[in-house]
């Protein structure tokens, strides 16, 4: 009898359970004569009646428990958090290497043939792959077999392999980036019975409960067989519990072995079978069963176990992998393939033999499968998120709609905007540059701290977030929580305030960069200094920003009004609590990198503010849409003023404090940005954008000591490394109507000609440019004559 060969996990029947049935029969004696006996008999009847009623009431109570558990949510399910899905289409900037990196995050396997989901094959500039499909918020993306052609780090073609027809758009499944677990740390993925491979069901029934589809929850034949087997063996080698009993035990009962528990188990198994179909019970069992342990996290259900051991979906499992999982039911720790590979293999092979015996597998097939290695992935996919900083942002933004308890237990599916490829790039840049900076500046290794925020310029989606130099470390999230003085990063806000008054200010307006001393409200003297400790006389508004002069900027800020500057900042998205001091004009105002990111987002998007957001949609456990986080726009500034400002911020990266970017970025990659440094060089900032990405980088010490780095020789280097390696498009300053470009003499802010020594092209809102010409122009009589005739024509 093969049953004996396969010890199972079934609850071993305690002797108490088997023997204590007898007393029940003994009570049936009675019905004797005599008054005492008669009274006794009455008492017995009353007792029997009362106990029957109690029994009925108790059964009703159990019935309520069983149904209560089955009708609603059966488990507390962790929330699953996903990255953005990678969209594939012809024309997308994406290298084959980047796609392979994404596929590895999705646990795709490189293979000779990619005919089944979860496999890919790369041949030079072509990658063929079979997607797995995914139920998204808006639609179910089907599994597809596609071919992708690349040239020069761009997708040039996307085809369905079978028909060779071009495809417009294919969405890969999203990378799982985190789970938010119930407090009891049970982790579980729910599979529907129709998605479970038939072989798994057959194997499970053969090994654990062959008569599942015919019994009523209890299988007395199995109990008898088990008893016989146990007697023969002289020890407990077999249990007689059905799957239903095992399920009842797992769902409702403690693990203690007592007659009372056994009675409950039998009663509830019967009730379960009475109320629910076999398939429902089987599906629940498949999702409930405990199959492994990952530290404190308990692995429940075959679907999760499949990922935990093989990094595959259930449908992708090989027969021998199915056999291993089914074998594990008996003892996930004892037969654990990572801890005890020999035991696991013996157990797996035993299951395969049983399948052969039952003619579910042919002899030849079973023999071949027994020769295969276990195929277990070396490392279990971690239950701990690799991106804790980003996850914290997600939780923060979910707070408004979902209490913590719902996150931990409601099985929510959360789609975020994280782009793992951008995130990994940002982490690489941070790791490389911080090490280099410490080495070249003689700073102790590991002393610098950092934070990075990367967003999509027009949609405001947060693509990457680095909260510290060790991005895996959960804890102090500098991107969200480190409020630091922002230094010169505040300047664009002052200039935008001025440029929003085109009748008063243009890029050519001359500012005064000579000593300034003012008395503040607390009766102190405030005398801003330039970084180079010099004064630069009269400078154009543009040059003052490009060179980041402090004195002329402070004067400009005082002229437009500190309150006005604060109002502009808040329209752009700055936090509410900005201090009304003159020193605010030089950046003595503390913000987090995220807050800075919000302000620069509005600038990068031509004056349209969109809240920085990390979540796209939230779905319920059955795929029902719950919440969407739509794109929201607010016009925060006049796009024409922002255009003027951004033209100057572009010059910052060409000739100004960020000109080091010229040698660090490819020539075609135009960007705009601003450096920021603070007193005693405690903080090094850079905030800037291309036509597609915005990034804010901060470097400093947690204890606020000097790091000896300015924005341009610290944060800028990290920023440049990130931008250089991203597939990003160059700056796209979308020119509003009624703008004109004119040559200006920077010495006096007047119209120049291209032969003038200090001529610069500058954009103007039409009608706001200076009308007088610079002396260098007037000195040319031919030009003057030309001007005269032009005036006549107009």
């Amino acid at each position, binding site marked *: 009898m093969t049953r004996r060969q396969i010890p199972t996990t079934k609850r071993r029947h305690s002797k108490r359970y088997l023997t204590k049935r007898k007393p029940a029969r003994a009570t049936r004696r009675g019905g004797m004569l005599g008054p005492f006996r008669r009274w006794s008999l009455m008492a017995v009847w009353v007792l029997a009646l009362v106990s029957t009623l109690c029994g009925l009431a108790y059964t009703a109570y159990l019935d309520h428990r069983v149904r209560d558990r089955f009708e609603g949510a059966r488990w507390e399910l962790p929330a699953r958090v996903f990255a953005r899905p990678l*969209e594939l289409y012809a024309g997308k900037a994406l290298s084959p290497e980047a796609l392979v990196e994404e596929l590895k995050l999705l646990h795709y396997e490189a293979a000779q043939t990619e005919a089944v989901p979860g496999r890919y094959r790369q041949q030079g500039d072509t990658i063929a792959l079979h997607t797995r499909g995914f139920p998204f918020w*808006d639609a179910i993306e089907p599994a597809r077999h596609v071919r992708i052609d690349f040239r020069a780090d761009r997708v040039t073609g996307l085809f369905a392999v079978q028909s060779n027809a071009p495809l*417009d758009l294919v969405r890969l499944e999203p990378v799982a980036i985190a789970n938010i677990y119930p407090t009891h740390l049970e982790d579980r993925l729910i599979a529907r019975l129709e998605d479970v491979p038939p072989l798994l069901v057959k194997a499970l029934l053969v090994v654990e409960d062959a008569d599942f589809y015919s019994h009523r929850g209890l299988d007395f034949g199995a109990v008898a067989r088990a008893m016989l087997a146990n007697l023969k063996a002289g020890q407990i080698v077999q249990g007689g519990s059905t799957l239903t009993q095992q399920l009842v035990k797992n769902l409702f009962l403690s693990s203690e072995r007592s007659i009372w528990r056994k009675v409950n188990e039998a009663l509830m198994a019967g009730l379960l079978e009475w109320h629910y179909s076999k398939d429902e019970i089987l599906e629940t069992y498949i999702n409930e069963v405990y199959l492994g342990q990952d530290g404190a996290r308990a692995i429940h259900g075959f679907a999760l176990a499949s990922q935990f051991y093989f990094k595959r979906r259930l449908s992708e499992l090989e027969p021998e992998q199915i056999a291993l999982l089914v074998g594990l039911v008996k003892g996930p720790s004892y037969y654990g393939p990572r801890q005890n590979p020999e035991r696991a293999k013996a157990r797996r092979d035993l299951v395969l033999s049983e399948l052969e015996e039952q003619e579910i597998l042919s002899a030849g097939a079973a023999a071949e499968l027994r020769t295969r290695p276990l195929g277990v992935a070396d490392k279990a996919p971690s239950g701990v998120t690799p991106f804790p900083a980003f996850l914290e942002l997600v939780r923060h933004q979910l707070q408004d709609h979902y209490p913590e308890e719902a996150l931990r237990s409601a099985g929510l599916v959360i789609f975020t905007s994280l782009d793992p490829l951008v995130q990994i790039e940002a982490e690489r840049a941070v790791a490389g540059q911080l090490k280099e900076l410490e080495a070249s500046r003689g700073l102790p290794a590991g002393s610098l701290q950092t934070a990075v925020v990367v967003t999509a310029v027009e949609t405001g989606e947060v693509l990457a977030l680095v909260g510290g130099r060790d991005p895996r470390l959960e804890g102090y999230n500098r991107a969200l929580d480190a409020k630091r003085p922002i230094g010169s990063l505040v300047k664009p806000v002052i200039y935008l305030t001025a440029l929003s008054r085109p009748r008063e200010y243009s890029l050519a307006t001359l500012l005064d960069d000579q000593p300034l001393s003012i008395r503040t409200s607390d009766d102190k003297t405030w005398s801003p200094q330039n970084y180079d400790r010099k004064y630069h006389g009269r400078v154009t508004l543009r040059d003052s920003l490009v060179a980041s002069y402090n004195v002329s900027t402070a004067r400009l800020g005082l002229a437009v009004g500190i309150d006005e500057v604060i109002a502009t900042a808040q329209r752009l998205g700055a936090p509410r609590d900005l201090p009304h001091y003159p020193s605010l004009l030089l950046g003595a105002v503390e913000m987090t990198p995220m807050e800075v990111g919000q302000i620069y987002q509005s600038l990068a998007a031509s004056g349209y503010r969109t809240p920085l957001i990390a979540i796209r949609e939230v779905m319920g456990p059955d795929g029902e849409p719950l919440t*969407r986080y739509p794109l929201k726009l607010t016009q925060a500034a006049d796009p024409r003023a922002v255009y003027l400002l951004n033209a100057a911020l572009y010059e910052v990266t060409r000739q100004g404090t960020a000109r080091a970017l010229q040698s660090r970025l490819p020539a075609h990659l135009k960007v705009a940005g601003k450096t920021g440094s603070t007193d005693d060089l405690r903080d090094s900032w850079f905030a800037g954008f291309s036509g597609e990405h915005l990034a804010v980088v901060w470097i400093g010490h947690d204890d606020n000591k000097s790091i000896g780095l300015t924005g341009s020789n610290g944060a800028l280097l990290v920023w440049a490394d990130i931008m250089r390696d991203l597939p990003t498009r160059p700056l796209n300053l979308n020119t509003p109507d009624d703008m004109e470009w004119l040559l200006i003499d920077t010495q006096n802010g007047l119209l120049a000609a291209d032969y003038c020594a200090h001529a610069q092209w500058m954009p103007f809102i039409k009608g706001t440019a200076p009308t007088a010409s610079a002396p260098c122009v007037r000195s040319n009589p*031919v030009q003057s004559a030309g001007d005269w*005739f032009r005036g006549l*024509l107009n």
Partner: protein
Amino acid sequence: MPGPHLVRGIAAAGLFLICLHGCVAPPKTDTPAPPPPPVPTAQEQSEAPQPSAAPVVALIKKAQGERREGRLEQAAASVERALRIDPYDSKLWNLLAAIRLQQGNAAQAEAMASKSNSLARNDRRLQRENWLIIAQARRQRGDEDGAREAEQRARTDDGAT
């Protein structure tokens, strides 16, 4: 009073002088100015309205289908998906504006239409549509004057925001 012929004659002479000036201009100094405009822009590269990219067209179709079925939020999600692919496609912002207007979200409708206009510099037809959306959005919010002004711009304006 000089006749028109005389004016034209003087103008011609002026043009000749300007040309002459170009020929005899002094040698350039050691800080040559960059050619205008030194800032890269989308419009300068292509003056005509650009057709949407294939994946964007597919998503616009999807969104329009969803909109017809009254699944407006679904349609908005499809447009946003397209915007992630090409945020500089003015037609997408216009479609999103129209959907938001249909949902009664006047503030977002106006902001999106205005954004669309800022990107649609060479597409008069789209600008007109955007101004009409702005007009309706303003009317929904009870801003009758603003609505009329927007309608006026839809009729006459070159679409500048």
